[in-house]
């Protein structure tokens, strides 16, 4: 066990899996960097934010492949390689760039298994950064996990901490289905104690980061941190919360969510993605359908407004859900009283 950043945890997961299995390869734009440069320096970047730094040195150019800036071709190549014997981890850099290669993910990789009558395996991992908070503006800040969650055949992982990232990424690499692994770019320097040895965290099993009686909070990715902060603050005021980190949006641990709502009767969902047809609407629909009788208050969603991500700091801060907004939402459901039945 040692202190590791989110960035280091991901790097370590990749390194350990590449050591374990020679079929695991890495590809993406500047995952090493420096090919064709004039200095001769290799591994110049190790990914645009340094997440894959050092992997080229250990595994060489046959297993750490810099690609041209051609998302459709290399994401498609990763899908094709996955279907034919390799276990590629392809990095899409910013998840927003899925616009350039969605067909290869949505119509190709996601469909092989079903469309080919169960005869294909596509052990593909696509890593990408998501999220607002970097002033990266409308084309580099989206939280697109609902888009992937919507597509049958894809598994979607949204790790909430360095520990979660390592275990879930190793699980993703060992999984035989296409997995979209989304890293919130604001979290790369977050640190916590993370085991040095490889370990896996199974998909579809939620983690309870706080346990309480009054309100259930379901939060995704970076929002788990804010939900925990909100729960700790509310505990001082006598409102005790359960915080659920579903870890994966597909598969989704519906059982844990329903069990917790059955206990608390109150639900707040925190989702950094655009508010229409997102994970918050999905979980709200689940609970409305399956746990209606347990509800003591309306379900509240804490999401950004239905706008592109703005550039200016003041607007971006208003855009992203935060601890204060979660606290306010929890208070409103905690104090809600049903009208007397007529």
């Amino acid at each position, binding site marked *: 066990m040692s202190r590791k950043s989110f960035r280091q945890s991901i790097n370590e997961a990749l390194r350990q899996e590449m050591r374990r299995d020679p079929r695991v390869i890495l590809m993406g734009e500047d995952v090493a960097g420096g090919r064709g440069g004039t200095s001769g320096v290799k591994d110049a970047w190790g990914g645009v934010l340094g997440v894959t730094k050092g992997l080229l040195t250990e595994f060489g150019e046959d297993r750490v492949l810099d690609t041209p800036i051609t998302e459709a071709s290399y994401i498609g190549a990763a899908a094709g390689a996955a279907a034919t014997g390799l276990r590629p981890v392809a990095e899409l850099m910013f998840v927003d760039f899925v616009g350039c290669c969605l067909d290869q993910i949505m119509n190709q990789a996601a469909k092989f298994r079903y469309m080919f009558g169960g005869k294909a395996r596509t052990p593909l991992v696509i890593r990408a950064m998501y999220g607002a908070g970097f002033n990266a503006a409308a084309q*580099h800040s989206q939280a697109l996990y609902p888009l992937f969650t919507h597509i049958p055949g894809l598994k979607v992982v949204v790790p909430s901490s360095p520990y979660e990232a390592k275990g879930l990424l190793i699980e993703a690499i060992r999984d035989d289905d296409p997995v979209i692994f989304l890293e919130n770019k604001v979290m790369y320097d977050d640190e916590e104690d993370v085991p040095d040895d490889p370990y896996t965290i199974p998909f579809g099993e939620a983690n309870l980061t706080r346990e309480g009686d009054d309100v259930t909070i379901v939060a995704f990715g970076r929002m788990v941190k804010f939900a925990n902060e909100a729960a700790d603050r509310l505990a001082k005021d006598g409102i005790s919360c359960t915080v659920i980190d579903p870890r994966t949006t597909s598969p989704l641990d519906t059982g844990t969510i329903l069990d917790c709502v059955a206990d608390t009767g109150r639900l707040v969902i925190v989702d950094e993605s655009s508010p229409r047809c997102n994970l918050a609407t999905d979980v709200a629909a689940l609970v409305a359908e399956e746990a209606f009788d347990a509800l003591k208050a309306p379900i509240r969603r804490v999401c950004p407004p239905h706008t592109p991500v703005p550039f200016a700091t003041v607007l971006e801060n208003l855009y992203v859900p935060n601890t204060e907004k979660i606290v306010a939402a929890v208070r409103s459901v905690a104090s809600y009283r049903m009208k007397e039945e007529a």
Partner: protein
Amino acid sequence: MQIARDILLRSYRSMRTIREFEERLHVEFATGEIPGFVHLYCGEEASGVGVCAHLTDTDTIASTHRGHGHCIAKGVGVDGMMAEIYGRQTGVCRGKGGSMHIADLSLGMLGANGIVGGGPPLICGAALSHKTLKDGAVAIAFYGDGASNEGSTLESLNLATVWNLPAVFVVEDNGYGEATGSSYACAGNQKDRAAGFGMPYFECDGNDFFSVYQTAGEAISHARNGNGPAMVHVHLARWYGHFEGDAMTYRAEGEVAELRADHDCLVNFRRRVTEAGLLEAAALDDVDMAVKDAVEAAVVAAKAAPLPVEDDLLKDVYVSY
């Protein structure tokens, strides 16, 4: 080649403005006051300016993540640009786009672009508008050697030819897509790509305004006269990293210093016009002074400008909803 005095002076002013703007941003970015990502156009000034010297506000351009130079060359004011980069309400996009999304459609500037290869398809559409509306205008896609490999770019070369569009594809080949050299990432060559799609190919030295101006002029005339698209391959170099903060370890020691010393398009321009007696050194000095003041004023104004307010967050998602 005769170029009118006013075009020369205007072009010099544009190039100098870009240089001053970008060098100043380099300094200001290091202070931490500028949010987000900034990609500088220093060293590439002659390309945007040499192309845009042939355009009017009716003509359309689409730019890249490295878009400041194209904006200035197309006439976008430095006050609105600087305020935008600082995320202010007075910015040309009201602080909602930032460096990577500066646009001014009233000037035919269809936007910088955060997506590599985002511009060429848009330019097919702009060219289609010009052709359909018979306004005599052309549409220009600026894109890098990196973007030249994108499917969207290659599809656009095809579509522009199929539809015989008044489009010009300007490949600004600075040798690097991010941290990867085009010698690795680009198969074949741009000339053969143009030939493959049946469009004329022009090539020029991006450190030399006159080379760009003359070459772009031929390509633009070709497109404007209804002969279909053309490609202009501009050989140039960027003086800074892919973005501010890039340590550029992939570039040889001294590479940038040599570019600055021997391949400065502004120095080349000054030498050429003064030796030929086209412009006087004093006139160029006046431009330098005026531009320095204008950029200084833009920074001061941007820093003092109001921030967006909460209402701005929900504004302009749709025209009507």
